[in-house]
């Protein structure tokens, strides 16, 4: 009797298992006809999830055999998560990231030109595509053109007697910048310390100010067009001296290396910062949203409504003003072991990339107050921009001074990245904290460059 029960139970389990497997099998066959393209992205702008979903729905309706699987990452951790998957040989098909020698060296970043026809590529402005190239090969497609600069509180600038309109039009040198911005460092009306210039020296991309000021000192990139390392030039030392002087002269907080982007914004909102770095055209939207919160009394205590103006970055005497610009966009990857027709899959990925960056996707550029990267996007969105006239004029001016991209040797680029990560970043924090002199930091960079580049 007992044996019979055991037998019946066993057979039931086998039967159920078989049915389940049969079910799964038929499902697998059905799914196999669909190609799933994995896209990892970020909260690019406040409406991006909605904009992305609209593009996705549109694309999937037109391409029923391709499904887009989206994963939204955080700005703080997304890059690290992506790096891990790349090294496991299993990155997503499309990532919101700029092409880099670091990823190309893994062999998983895929040039896209072979998977796009000339007509599709012709929709993209060549200037935007240039930024998605490494060593002349196109690895991705841009979503929008971008610039990064400085911005200020109009009220505080005027209180300090700074003619911001003239600065917008004529720019300023490092000496002029220090002379004027110094006036913004004082005790404010709330009895709190106000600084003329607040920049983030902590958090994601904490060394950006150094890169921007190098650009404004005739050192646009670590590697020049001949792939020669440039940060051993004495101009680099001048940049370091200038940054350090901002702190020693009280223009910027002495705790600069602990100021995160969030804290920088808090300083702006509480009128403790007259000028901030970095700023982007999108800040007009972000700050307008915060102004609404202040009006509704839902903003943190002490925050004020800010009238925000974009400003050019100061440049070294005798050097041309330059703006760090370029594009943000999607880059194409493959997996180490792909089960299926990889060539067809890559073609499908390219199709998805085009949808995510052209025409309808241009809505994000509108929200970000940034120019379109495609003619189709331009046609669709050109009348939708709502930027303040003075900031719009400044953005147009700044775009004229953008430093063009350079195509450098990927191996040398990896070495430059190593110097940046192992020496420049940690030394820069120490420079901001007053633990390292500009001369000492410059010496460290020279030593490492000698070790890696022999120069």
């Amino acid at each position, binding site marked *: 009797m007992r044996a019979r029960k055991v037998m019946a139970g066993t057979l039931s389990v086998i039967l159920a298992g078989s049915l389940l497997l049969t079910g799964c099998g038929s499902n697998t066959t059905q799914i196999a006809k669909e190609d799933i393209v994995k896209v990892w992205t970020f909260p690019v702008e406040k409406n991006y999830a909605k904009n992305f979903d609209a593009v996705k729905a549109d694309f999937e309706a037109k391409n029923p055999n391709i499904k887009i699987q989206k994963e939204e990452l955080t700005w703080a951790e997304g890059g*690290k998560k992506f*790096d*891990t998957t*790349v*090294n*496991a*040989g299993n990155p997503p098909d499309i990532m919101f990231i700029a092409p880099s020698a*670091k990823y190309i*060296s*893994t*062999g*998983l970043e895929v040039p896209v030109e072979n998977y796009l026809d000339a007509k599709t590529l012709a929709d993209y402005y060549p200037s935007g595509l240039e930024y998605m190239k490494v060593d002349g090969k196109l690895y991705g497609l841009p979503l929008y053109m971008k610039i990064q600069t400085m911005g200020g509180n109009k009220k505080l600038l005027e209180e300090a007697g700074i003619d911001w309109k003239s600065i917008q039009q004529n720019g300023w040198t490092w000496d002029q910048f220090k002379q004027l911005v110094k006036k913004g460092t004082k005790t404010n009306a709330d009895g709190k*310390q106000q600084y003329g210039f607040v920049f983030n020296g*902590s958090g994601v991309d904490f060394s950006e100010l150094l890169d921007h000021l190098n650009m404004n000192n005739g050192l646009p990139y670590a590697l020049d067009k001949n792939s020669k390392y440039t940060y051993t030039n004495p101009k680099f030392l001048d940049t370091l001296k200038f940054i350090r002087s901002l702190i020693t002269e009280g223009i910027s*907080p*002495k*705790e600069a*290396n*602990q100021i995160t982007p969030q804290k920088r914004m808090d300083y702006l909102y509480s009128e403790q910062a007259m000028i901030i770095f970095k700023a982007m055209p999108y800040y007009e939207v972000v700050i307008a949203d915060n102004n609404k919160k202040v009006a509704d009394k839902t903003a943190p205590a002490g925050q004020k409504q800010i009238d925000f103006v974009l400003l050019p970055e100061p440049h070294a005497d005798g050097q041309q003003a330059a703006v760090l610009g370029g594009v943000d966009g999607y880059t194409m990857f493959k997996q*180490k072991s792909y089960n299926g027709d990889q060539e067809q899959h890559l073609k499908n990925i390219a199709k998805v990339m085009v949808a995510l960056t052209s025409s309808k996707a241009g809505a994000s550029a509108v929200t970000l107050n940034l120019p379109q990267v495609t003619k189709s996007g331009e046609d669709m969105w050109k009348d939708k921009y709502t930027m303040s006239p003075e900031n719009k004029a400044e953005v147009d001016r700044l775009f004229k001074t953008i430093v063009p991209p350079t195509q450098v040797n990927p191996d040398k680029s990896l070495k430059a990245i*190593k110097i940046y*990560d*192992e020496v420049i*970043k*940690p*030394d820069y*924090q*120490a420079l*901001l*904290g*007053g*633990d*390292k002199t500009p001369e000492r930091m410059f010496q460290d960079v020279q030593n490492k460059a000698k070790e890696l580049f022999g120069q």
Partner: protein
Amino acid sequence: MKKMADADNRWARNRQFIQDYGWSYIFIALPILIFLTFTLYPLLRALVMSFQTYHVMGSEWVGFKNYAYVFHRELFSKALINTLLYTLGTVPINIIISLGLALAIFQLGKKSQTFFKASFYLPAVASGVTISLVWLFIYDPMPEGLMNQFIHLFGFANVNWLGKVDTALLSLMFLTFLGGHGSGLILYLASLGGIPKTIYEAADIDAASTWSKFRNITWPLLKPTTLYMLVINVIGSFQVFMSAYLMTSGGPDHATTTIAYLIYQDAFEYFEFGVAAAESFILALIIVAISVLQFKYMGSDVEY
């Protein structure tokens, strides 16, 4: 005929063995499988990787090149020194704090003991990430930061705790002093409860002072626990990663770059997995060597 009988006997013995111990093997099979898959295999894989230049699409055998590079690398020496300083600065003090707390709590009644045990164990339950974020708030370098407000009461100006080379590592050490004593406290309290009261009574009859009782009775009888704490804490502090990663990113100027953080950077930021694997095995060897020395020199007069 005899062969058939032997076969029957063997089968019967096997069946009996399975009946008696079958479940035991099934129960231990899962942990063994987990150990083989998630510990032994990655360990062996990492060992192989330490002799390779790792590439996702195919690695290259380089022999001892990674080890040679690590031994000559200035940053590794710096990370090693930072880790040693961190260990020397945290382990003895934390053991003393745990012991002091245990001695104080042991004098209390049952209910009070339970309350304090639970209270001190609470940080062990809380996520390390959360604790690090709370400490980031406490170490806010501006005058409004909590720690700065505290020192301001004594007339000191605000300090950039995590942003200065002199204070960054000390700040990471200090946060361990104010938390993480839960396990040590429980261990010491259990050991204190295991010391026979008659020994103290005999000492009382001899009019021994409190210090004399501690030095001659409590401390020697707590030595096994102290040795255990020392070994476990040294291993833990050599592997310190979370606070360096979350609070300082190893900076400024590598002042808080520990070996574990350097391994992480080499692997996941610079994609040099071979170097990172070599560093991991060097770290493992250092930990084993220190543990052996601890047992050899400090465990000689320990009675279990």
